[in-house]
């Protein structure tokens, strides 16, 4: 596991400063979406073996939610982006 995460706000920091929330590729359904859509959002996971996107909160730093692009097999970190910036960019 790469033990250093490059926070876009705080710079290179040890990964122990972060709290891992989980899969960031999920899209929250509309409030009145079907039960199945909500079930899939809350419970079903792609669980990729390889490149994945996760929400990591920089709890001991800027407290921002970041999206960490990481390889679950090699533990290589490819990119770290602020969650809000990524959401704006992808038009969420």
């Amino acid at each position, binding site marked *: *596991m790469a*033990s250093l995460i490059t926070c876009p706000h705080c710079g290179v920091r040890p990964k122990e400063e972060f709290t891992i929330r989980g899969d960031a590729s999920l899209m929250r359904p509309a409030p009145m979406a079907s039960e199945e859509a909500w079930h899939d959002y809350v419970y079903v996971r792609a669980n990729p073996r390889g490149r994945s996107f996760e929400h990591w909160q920089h709890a001991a730093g800027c407290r921002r939610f970041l999206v960490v692009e990481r390889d679950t097999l090699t533990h290589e970190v490819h990119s770290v982006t602020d969650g809000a910036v990524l959401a704006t960019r992808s038009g969420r």
Partner: protein
Amino acid sequence: MRYSAFSIFRNALSGNLTWKSQWRKPEPKPHYDVIIVGGGGHGLAAAYYLAKEFGIRNVAVLEKGYLGSGNVGRNTTIVRSNYMLAGNEPFYEFSMKLWEGLEQELNYNVMLSQRGVIMLYHSDGQRDAYIRRGNAMWMEGVAAELIERDALKKMIPFLNYDNARYPILGGLLQRRAGTARHDAVAWGYARGADRHGVDVIEHCEVTAIRRDGGRVTGVETTRGFIGCGKLALAAAGNSSQVGQMADLKLPLESYVLQAFVTEGLKPCIDHVIVYGGGHFYISQSDKGGLVFGGAIDGYSSYAQRGNLATAEHVMEEGVSMIPGLSRVRVLRSWAGIMDMSMDGSPIVDRTPIDNLYVNAGWCYGGFKATPASGYCFAHLIARNDAHPVARPFRLDRFARGYAIDEAGVGPQPNLH
């Protein structure tokens, strides 16, 4: 060959040169009635019970590595049935009973040692919670004992009773629980299954699942196509990958769990001791090494190796419970990939595809479940109907609102 004291004696006289290998190395046949994907403890146990109890002998177990290379050889060997929830306890007690007869059943020494598992409590609130858990166990007919501080001090004198933050006030003891030799469990089931005609095929990785009209017809493997009547998945940490081949939507995330062993010591820890101030458990192997572990590393991973920060955290917990541990040197550590489910409980169920069955989501409690998981999975495959004690472990329980959340943390797999 049936093992006995006489066979040991006879082979000793012939220089131990005439022992036969414990299972065959068969070439895959073109078609089997049942194919089980995953030659770990659960897959092998399922194959064994399918052949022995349910009369289905045309069975293959496909393992991508060598037998015992996955989680069955990577755990801390603890077997117990001290769960609280009604969905779990009958199943794990069924498993405990199978453990108690396993050596006779398999004619194989799995070194079951019912040395007792004691879970420590450190506050009045935690004591109440353990009394509740103990009572829940008694409700299912399983003996549990609350050991108060003074009695515990006589039983286990070397604990750090007066830790300022986590004083040890007592523990909940299940005397029938203990440890088993994990490799022997895999080998014993493999040998037993083989003797009943099951083909255990090593180094055969499933690469695709072939379907025709909504039914599985077989699997593509690294050793060619193999047809099957029914397909059963017991792929542990890689369940999502295998499931994806049949478009299964699974409520799983894979995480890495580490375990450690120290240099060999004289006998000093007589029980399995579980720390209540964090997540730490320790026992002593027959070779003398202290085997211990803690919680999973917090990030999803398929790497079968852990992070030093978690190793440090686990050892800090150990030393805060047993200060003398600081003098012991760690010999080695290893890690396995846990199929963490959304409520911390397993899935043993049919799937939307008629002849496809899934056994997954054992989190880091799979080893103790091996016999019952195998038995119930075999029951499900053979009769197309869940065994009564495995009925709560349904794939659709999240949608129906019947999650079995022992830890009470919700759909957050890295917290279970």
